[in-house]
């Protein structure tokens, strides 16, 4: 089983996690820029964080044979702090980098006017830099937040296939499926989704346009939840090829839209002949 984790915060993880991920088939990942637990109070903290996402963290990942890419954005939580607003001005520098394969995580936390404005601005940056977008949906008031998210995405003029709406569950998946956006699921040890509930969603909605991630971060989380979901899929009767589509080809197709994915050195999966998507992405 080859795995591409499309959403994991490696900055918060130890080298043991990298080793365990590599041993379970994780060969590539995307680390979205988000908050760090402790709120930041100045642009400098963000710049250093972004530098780690394009410098130190890919180096750390490479020592375990894992390809590391990232997404860059001002996250919605900190968008509410006027001291962090100037981050918007440094974003263009980072959105120009080879290792940056999307704008994200953007979206809503508390659905304030500040979040509205920062979200819309960053959707325009995605257009300007021809990058896909990773949208976080709020933990509180999730259904309403998802509806509002989809309205803002539509208004932005971005193509739905260049947007993934993440952290979905049974109640929010339908609306996103109908919108044409990609559907993202974070599989956690006890909140959000678990592997068995994920399998039920895959049975209902199929394996297209779906991204499954561990979203592992500073909270209680597990970087091997992607692997556990692959196992749960097989146990439920999905084929190896279905698993490869969800855990590898789908993230490659989504982030490949950036034209910046570099997967040289990753191992092909024998359940899938020829990695044409990969070649397309590297053109």
């Amino acid at each position, binding site marked *: 089983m080859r795995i591409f984790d499309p959403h994991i915060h490696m900055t918060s993880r130890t080298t043991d996690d990298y080793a365990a991920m590599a041993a379970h088939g994780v060969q590539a990942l995307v680390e979205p820029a988000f908050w760090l637990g402790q709120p930041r109070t100045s642009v400098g903290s963000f710049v250093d964080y972004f530098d780690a996402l*394009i*410098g130190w963290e890919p*180096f750390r990942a490479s020592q375990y044979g894992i390809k590391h890419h990232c997404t860059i954005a001002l996250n919605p939580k900190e968008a509410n702090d006027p001291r962090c607003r100037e981050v918007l001005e440094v974003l263009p520098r*980072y959105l120009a*980098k*080879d290792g940056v394969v999307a704008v994200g995580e953007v979206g809503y936390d508390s659905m304030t006017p500040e979040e509205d404005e920062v979200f819309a601005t960053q959707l325009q940056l995605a257009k300007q830099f021809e990058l896909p977008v990773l949208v976080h949906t709020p933990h509180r008031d999730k259904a309403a937040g998802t509806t509002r998210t989809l309205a803002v995405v539509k208004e932005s003029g971005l193509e739905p296939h260049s947007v993934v709406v993440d952290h979905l569950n049974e109640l929010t998946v339908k609306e996103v499926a109908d919108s044409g956006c990609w559907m993202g699921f974070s599989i956690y040890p006890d909140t959000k989704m678990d592997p068995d509930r994920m399998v039920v969603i895959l049975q209902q909605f199929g394996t297209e346009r779906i991204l499954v991630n561990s979203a592992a971060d500073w909270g209680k989380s597990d970087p091997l939840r992607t692997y556990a979901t692959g196992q749960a899929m097989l146990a439920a009767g999905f084929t190896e090829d279905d698993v490869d589509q969800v855990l590898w080809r789908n993230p490659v197709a989504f982030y490949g839209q950036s034209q*910046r994915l570099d997967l040289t050195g990753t191992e092909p999966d024998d359940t899938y002949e020829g990695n044409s998507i990969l070649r397309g992405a590297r053109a």
Partner: protein
Amino acid sequence: MRPEVLTPATELEMLLPASARTWLAEARRQPLETAFPAAARKVGRDRLSPAWTTDQAVRVLLLVGAPATDVLDVYRYGDAAEKLAVLHALSVADVAHPLDDQALPIIEDAIRTNDRRLLAAALGPYATHHLPQHAFRQAVLKCVFADVPLAVVDGLPKRVDQELIRMMSDFAAERSAAGRDTPADLEAYLTCPP
């Protein structure tokens, strides 16, 4: 700096395939902060010679004639590949000469990182010429810790002094007290002092 150790920019230009030359001509009319990060995905990363890849050569050529503030700026905001290209640029005469010692903060930053590619690239001829002796000794010892082969350090063996030998000997003693091997390339400096 002794000119014979530096590569002239014309040599790099000759290595470039035609398509990369065309892009370079276009890119020189764009702001450096736009062209520099885009270079690798525009011209590719093929190896042109043992020392140079296409993206590195093009990035270096973009820095020819750039003011020191711009060079420091692209390094400051660069990803690892861009930072490496700036460090390599300091071994090219047309970039290094006009900068004189103004690029020293770049070398110092690269030495502070724990990325051994940056550390190795920092210790080229520019560091040999401009890095103060104390910092040079510390950087060499850091290479030993980080498994960077001492053969890549341009300033060795010519900048070895008694103090560096003492530091290396102490390191070797610490290693043997811990029951661990001393790196083979260190041995040469312990047995053949300058």
